[in-house]
């Protein structure tokens, strides 16, 4: 099968409006960053009780999405499965852009972002026992690998793309395992401390990455009037359902370990504390149960719509899972001395949704989407429209051409609504 790719025209009104809105959001992002940088992180919701907030949540979420997208791209470039070829380039591009967003998140989250270069002074000015310092190797290498991978994919150098793709898929797994280790190795926080955390992170990454890829592929193909074989989406849906089951097993045993032994204050705080809804509604409900019901429903699992709805649920649910780790994980009161700690020191941490932190997060999401739509215009990412099929559904194509402006605007709105849901 010979597949040619072409950029989208990007001249419709809807596309321009979308780029304009995203541009404004990026300006908002820069403003939010400057506000936080100049007035200190007091404008965010974080405190000494919950030291990491929205930015770290989005950081690990994005790293997961990126790792998931790169692993799925391996279906096309490493395993050479022809049916996944149309979505190969888009997966690599997503991996790169979302990871860029993750790096922006972690950079602006620093109290002194201008000193970030210390992380890259290996052994000399940084401390190699820190997971952050180790991750600077993983993250730096990952960005380089993805740039080469994308370039090879665009140049159709399939042999080299297979080699680099294989390395990148393995590297992505390393990247996300070590991201999980940032949390899993912290012995003092009962909710975080778990040897299964790196594996849980990879599995959650695969679910959210596959799910987001499904959404993006369906949206991009639909709103640019390209045709995609339904089987690709349905088989990705089946893949998704299997990974979700693996994730369910991991989460079950992780939480069982934490609740079984009498030392269970952490798990109880997660299940019944102030942030119970992050765990039960988002992580368990939207991340695991709802998508599993849809993906095993005899009818819904065979329709693109059903798979897309399950994917949206997963994408939001996994964001909830990240939040259920970062926020209750640190908000729980540490038992310093037998008894009840009185006053403010014994109160579980509260994490309010702060304005400038939220605008910054939304701005970073917009930055990723903006880079993505620009890449669709300037790079050969999507498969070219097939000339054979174009004349066939004439009536339909005319109709969609008329509506193309609106439909892209609708795409924009859909993207925004996902963004706000994520926020």
């Amino acid at each position: 099968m010979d597949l040619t790719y072409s950029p989208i025209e990007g001249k419709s009104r809807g596309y321009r409006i979308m780029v304009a809105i995203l541009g404004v959001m990026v300006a908002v992002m820069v403003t939010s960053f400057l506000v936080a940088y100049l007035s200190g992180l007091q404008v965010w919701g974080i405190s000494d009780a919950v030291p990491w907030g929205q930015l770290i949540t989005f950081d690990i979420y994005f790293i997961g999405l990126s790792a998931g997208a790169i692993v799925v791209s391996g279906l096309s470039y490493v395993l050479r499965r022809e049916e996944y070829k149309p979505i190969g380039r888009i997966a690599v591009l997503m991996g790169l852009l979302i990871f860029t967003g993750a790096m922006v998140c972690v950079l602006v989250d620093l109290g002194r972002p201008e000193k970030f270069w210390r992380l890259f002074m290996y052994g000399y000015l940084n401390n190699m026992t820190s997971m952050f310092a180790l991750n600077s190797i993983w993250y730096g290498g990952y960005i380089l690998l993805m740039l080469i991978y994308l370039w090879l994919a665009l140049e159709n150098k399939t042999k080299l793309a297979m080699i680099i793709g294989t390395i990148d898929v393995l590297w992505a797994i390393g990247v996300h395992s070590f991201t999980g280790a940032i949390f899993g190795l912290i012995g003092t926080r009962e909710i975080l401390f778990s040897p299964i955390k790196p594996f849980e992170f990879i599995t959650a990454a695969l679910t959210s990455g596959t799910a987001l890829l499904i959404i993006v592929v369906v949206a991009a193909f639909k709103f640019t009037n390209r045709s995609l074989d339904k089987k690709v989406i349905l088989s990705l849906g089946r893949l998704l359902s299997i990974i979700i089951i693996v994730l369910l097993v991991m989460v079950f045993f992780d939480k069982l370990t934490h609740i079984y032994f009498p030392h269970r204050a952490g798990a109880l705080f997660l299940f019944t504390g102030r942030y119970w809804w992050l765990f039960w509604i988002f992580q368990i409900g939207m991340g695991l149960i709802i998508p599993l019901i849809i993906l095993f429903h005899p009818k819904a699992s065979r329709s693109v719509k059903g798979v897309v709805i399950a994917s949206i649920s997963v994408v939001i649910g996994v964001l909830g899972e990240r939040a259920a780790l970062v926020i209750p994980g640190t908000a729980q009161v540490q038992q310093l001395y037998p008894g009840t700690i009185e006053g403010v020191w014994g109160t579980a941490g509260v994490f309010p949704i702060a304005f400038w932190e939220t605008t910054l997060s939304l701005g970073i999401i917009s930055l990723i989407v903006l880079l993505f739509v620009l890449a669709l215009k300037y790079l050969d990412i999507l498969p070219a429209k097939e000339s054979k099929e174009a004349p066939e559904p004439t009536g339909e194509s005319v109709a969609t051409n008329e509506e193309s402006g609106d439909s892209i605007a609708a795409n924009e709105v859909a993207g925004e609504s996902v963004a706000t849901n994520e926020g």
Partner: protein
Amino acid sequence: MARWGMVIDLDKCVGCQSCSVACKAENNVPHGSATEQRQRREIYWNRVIAVSEGEYPTARLEFIPMPCMHCEDAPCVTVCPAKATYHRDDGIVIQDFRRCIGCRYCLIACPYGVRSFNFKDQQEEEYHRPDLPPTRADRGAWPFPQRVRGVVEKCTFCFHRIDQGLKEGKKIGIDVVPACVEACPSKARIFGDLDDPNSEVSRLLATRGSFRLREELSTHPKVFYLHG
């Protein structure tokens, strides 16, 4: 080399918070507003927590003064990516503001919650130290003349006092002690060299039952508590 440690006698502590105030005065730790205190954004290098157990009439309330524990195996030192927090040769865990990148990983890893992040620019008079002029040449008595926002702060066992005292040939633990030890009205805090068998801290640890906070984590804190 000495190994500095502190012994806190819970039997003598009355929970007056003099140590917290003295620490703030000595180290120019800013005073937060009531809102900041409620939001847990006020900087504390030393605090006193009240722990209650049981119900009336068998209720018990204990005050636990908490400086940095200066753990021998400190999780904050392990996780700090920028070498901003490290052990001095005398065992004091130091936070270097110049190196700190503000990632707050140490706040996550600290089992005692004794670290504070600086969330905003503090008022100038709160950290200006005209009495201890810093000289870059030999780091001076106070190496951090400028408190900056966006970095993590913590107790230093008043190492500037110790260094100054050693230079002047004074006896640490007798003539020179950290500000919190000096200010304690009931003399509940004792400071000294844990390696010196003749020091007051060694004598107390040898003769009285003591414990350390969260010993099960094996961080080996150098702050010991005598049972109240």
